[in-house]
C-alpha cells in the first residue's frame, strides 16, 4: 500500500477511536453537572454520591478522549502536510482557537474538579463541572466548524497558491457547521443518556441501590428522550443541507445512479458500482428522496452517473452507514418513548431493562457510522470540490507510515480494552456506600 492509503487508514483509526470517547465526555459532563447541581440545591447526599459515581466513570473515559485528541492535531502535520500548507490559513486558525478557548478550560478545570472536593465550596465545585461541560461543547463547536469547512468550504480566496481566509464570519456562521454541530452533539447526548440508562438498568435488574439507580435512569431517560426526538427532526435538516452542499454524497447515500425527477427512496438495495446501477432494489417509495432533500416530491435529484467517475464516493459504504444510522436513530426514539411510560415501574419491567443493557453499544455504532458517512462520503475530496485527498498527503516514506499505523492500532486496541475493562468493572461495583446517618 502507498503512503496515501496508509495515511487514510491511520487517520480513520485515530478519528474513529477518538470518537469512541468524545461523545460520552460531551454528554456525561452535563449529566454529572446536573446531578451535582441538584446536590447543591437540595442538600440530598444521594445526588452527591451520584455525581461521584458517574463522575468517576466520566474520568476513565475522559482520559482517553484527551490523549487521543492530541494525536489528531499533530496528524495534520505529520501525515497531511500538503493539506496543512494549502488550507492552514483557515483550518489551522480554527484548531488554534479551539485550543485557546476550549481545551485550556477543559483541561484546567477537570484537574480542579478531581482535586477540589474538599478545597472548594460545594457550589464552586459544581460550577467547575459546568465549566468542563461548557468547554467540551466549545471544543465541539470549533472542531465541527473546521470539519464543516472541509465539507463545504466558504469564505476563502485562492491566492499565493493556497486557500486564504477572505471572510472569517462566513466561515464561523455557515449553516453547514451549525447543522453538523447540532447533529453531532445531540448524538453525543443520546449516547450518554443510553450509557447512564444501560448501567442503571443492569443494577436495577439486580435490585442494587434501587432509589439511586432509578433516579439516575430517569435523568438519563429524559436527556436521551428529548435528544432522540430532536435528532430525528434535525437529521432531516442535515440531509437537506447535504443535498444542497454535497450532491455526490447525497446520491451515494441513496445509491441513486440516474438523475431523477421525483426521486424515490429505496428500502433495500444492492449497488453495483462497476456497472453504475443497482443490482437489486426492493421497496421503492416514489418521491421520498426528493421530498426529504428538497421538500418537494417532484424535485429533481442528480444521480451518480452524471458525475465523473473519479468524483464519486464509495457507494456501498455511504449507503449502508446512512441506512443503519437512520434505523438506529428511529430505534432510539422508540426505546426512550417506551421508557417514558415505564419510568415509574422500572424494577418491574425486566425485559425492558435487559434490552436497555444491551442497547449501550447501539448509539456508539450510530455515531461511528455517522462519521464514516461524513468522511468517506466526502471522498475523493479532502476539501469538497477544492482539494483531493490524494494531493494532501505528506511526502513521507510509506514504510514509516506503515510502522506508525501498526503502532497506533496496537496501542489503541490495548487502551480501548483497558478503558472499557475499567469502566465495566467500576460500573458493576456501583456507588460508594451511603455514609451512615
Amino acid at each position: 500500500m502507498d503512503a496515501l492509503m496508509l495515511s487514510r487508514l491511520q487517520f480513520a483509526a485515530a478519528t474513529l477511536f477518538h470518537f469512541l470517547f468524545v461523545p460520552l465526555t460531551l454528554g456525561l459532563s452535563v449529566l454529572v453537572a446536573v446531578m451535582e447541581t441538584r446536590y447543591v440545591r437540595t442538600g440530598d447526599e444521594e445526588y452527591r454520591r451520584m455525581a461521584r459515581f458517574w463522575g468517576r466513570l466520566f474520568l476513565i473515559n475522559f482520559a482517553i478522549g484527551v490523549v487521543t485528541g492530541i494525536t489528531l492535531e499533530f496528524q495534520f502535520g505529520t501525515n497531511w502536510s500538503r493539506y496543512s500548507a494549502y488550507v492552514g490559513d483557515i483550518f489551522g486558525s480554527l484548531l488554534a482557537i479551539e485550543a485557546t478557548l476550549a481545551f485550556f478550560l477543559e483541561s484546567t478545570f477537570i484537574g480542579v474538579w478531581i482535586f477540589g472536593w474538599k478545597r472548594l465550596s460545594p457550589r464552586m465545585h459544581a460550577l467547575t463541572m459546568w465549566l468542563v461541560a461548557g468547554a467540551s461543547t466549545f471544543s465541539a463547536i470549533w472542531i465541527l466548524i473546521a470539519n464543516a469547512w472541509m465539507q463545504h468550504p466558504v469564505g476563502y480566496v485562492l491566492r499565493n497558491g493556497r486557500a486564504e481566509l477572505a471572510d472569517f464570519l462566513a466561515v464561523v456562521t455557515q449553516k453547514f457547521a451549525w447543522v453538523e454541530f447540532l447533529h453531532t452533539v445531540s448524538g453525543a447526548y443520546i449516547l450518554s443518556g443510553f450509557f447512564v440508562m444501560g448501567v442503571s438498568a443492569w443494577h436495577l435488574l439486580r435490585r442494587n441501590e434501587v432509589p439511586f439507580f432509578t433516579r439516575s435512569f430517569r435523568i438519563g431517560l429524559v436527556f436521551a428522550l428529548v435528544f432522540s426526538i430532536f435528532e430525528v427532526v434535525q437529521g432531516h435538516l442535515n440531509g437537506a443541507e447535504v443535498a444542497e452542499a454535497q450532491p455526490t454524497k447525497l446520491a451515494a447515500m441513496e445509491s441513486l445512479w440516474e438523475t431523477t425527477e421525483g426521486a424515490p427512496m429505496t428500502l433495500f438495495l444492492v449497488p453495483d458500482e462497476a456497472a453504475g446501477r443497482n443490482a437489486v432494489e426492493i421497496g421503492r417509495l416514489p418521491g421520498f428522496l426528493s421530498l426529504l432533500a428538497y421538500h418537494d416530491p417532484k424535485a429533481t435529484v442528480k444521480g451518480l452517473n452524471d458525475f465523473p467517475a473519479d468524483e464519486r464516493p464509495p457507494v456501498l459504504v455511504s449507503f449502508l452507514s446512512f441506512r443503519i444510522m437512520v434505523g438506529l436513530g428511529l430505534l432510539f426514539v422508540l426505546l426512550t418513548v417506551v421508557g417514558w411510560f415505564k419510568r415509574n415501574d422500572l424494577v418491574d419491567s425486566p425485559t425492558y431493562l435487559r434490552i436497555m443493557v444491551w442497547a449501550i453499544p447501539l448509539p456508539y455504532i450510530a455515531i461511528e457510522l455517522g462519521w464514516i458517512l461524513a468522511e468517506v462520503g466526502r471522498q475523493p475530496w479532502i476539501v469538497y470540490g477544492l482539494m483531493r485527498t490524494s494531493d494532501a498527503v505528506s511526502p513521507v516514506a510509506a514504510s514509516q507510515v506503515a510502522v506508525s499505523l501498526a503502532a497506533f492500532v496496537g496501542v489503541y486496541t490495548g487502551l480501548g480494552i483497558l478503558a472499557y475493562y475499567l469502566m465495566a468493572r467500576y460500573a458493576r461495583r456501583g456507588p460508594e456506600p451511603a455514609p451512615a446517618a
Partner: protein
Amino acid sequence: MLETIWFIIWGVLWTVYFVLDGFDLGLGALMPALAKTEEEKRTVYNSMGPFWDGNEVWLITAGGVTFAAFPGTYAVMFSTLYAPLLWLLFALIFRGIAMEYRGHMESERWRGFWDLVLSAASFLPALLLGVAFANIFQGVPFDTRGVFHGSLLTLLNPYGLLGGVLFVLLFMVHGCLWLAARSTGALRDRAAALAGRLWWALAAAAVAFFAASWKATSLYANYLAAPALFLIPAVAVAALLATRFFLGQGRWWRAWTASAVTIAGAAFFGVAGLYPALYPSSLDPAATLTAFNSSSSPLTLKIMLGVALVLVPVVIAYQAWTYRTFAAGPAEAGGHEEGY
C-alpha cells in the same frame, strides 16, 4: 510586523510550555528515585495532579499556533520530524493514562506498572523536545519540497543529544524543586539533595550547550548584530546561579522560580538566535522556513492576534488561580487531596 509579533508569541508559547510542563515531566521521570513508599508516591502524584493536564495544553497551543500562524512551517516541520513526533505522542498518551488510571485498581503490581510507565513517558518527551529543538537550532536536512533527507539517527547527532541532555536536566532540577516546595520530611530532603546534585550536571551541560552552539549553529549571528540580546543568556546564567543560591538556603519556592527563569532564558536564547527562521534547512538555505515565507495571510494573523490578546490573559488568570488554590501548602498522600 505581524509576522514578527507572531514569531514572538510562538516563542513565548513554547517557553511557557517548557516552564510549566517542565516540572511535572522532570518529577515524573525521577519518580522512582524520589518516592520510596506508596505514601510518598501518592504525595508526588498529588503534588502535580491538579496541574499537569492544564500545563500540557500549552504544548497543544504551541502546535496549534504554528499551524495557524505559520502553516508552511507546521507542514514541513511536523512531516520531516515524523518519527520523533510519534514517539512524543505515544509518550504523552501513556503519561496521561498512567496519571489517570494508576489509582483505579487496588493492586501493587498495577500501580507499580503505571509508575514505571509514568517515569519513562515523562523522560522521553523531555529528551525528545531537547533533541528536536537543538536540531532546529542547527538546521534539519530537508529540501525545498519539504522532503526530509535523513532518518531518526540523523537527528541523534552530538549537538542534538546535548540539547536532549540539557532539557532533561533542566526539567529534572525544576521537578525536584517543585517537590521540595510541596513536601515535608524525608521526601523533601531527598528531593533537595537530588536537586543539588543534578544542578552541577545541569551547569556543566549548560556551559557545554552555550559553547557548542557557537560551532554547531548560527544562533550567535543575531547576538553579534544586536549585542543587547546577550541579556537573554545572561539572565539565564544568573537565574541558574540564583537557583543554586536559594537551594542552599532551603528557600524552595524562590529556587523553583529561579529555575523557571533559567528554562525561559534558555528557550529564548534559542528563539532570539533563530529569528526570523522558524525551521532552518541544513541542506539548502532556500528551503529554510521563516516567519515571513511561511506565515498565514495578514487577515488570519490579525484575527488570531485579536483572539490571543483576549483569551490568553484569561487562560493565564484562571491557571494562576488554580496554582494559588492548589499549590498552597504541602501536598499530602491522603486527607486533603483526593485525586489519584
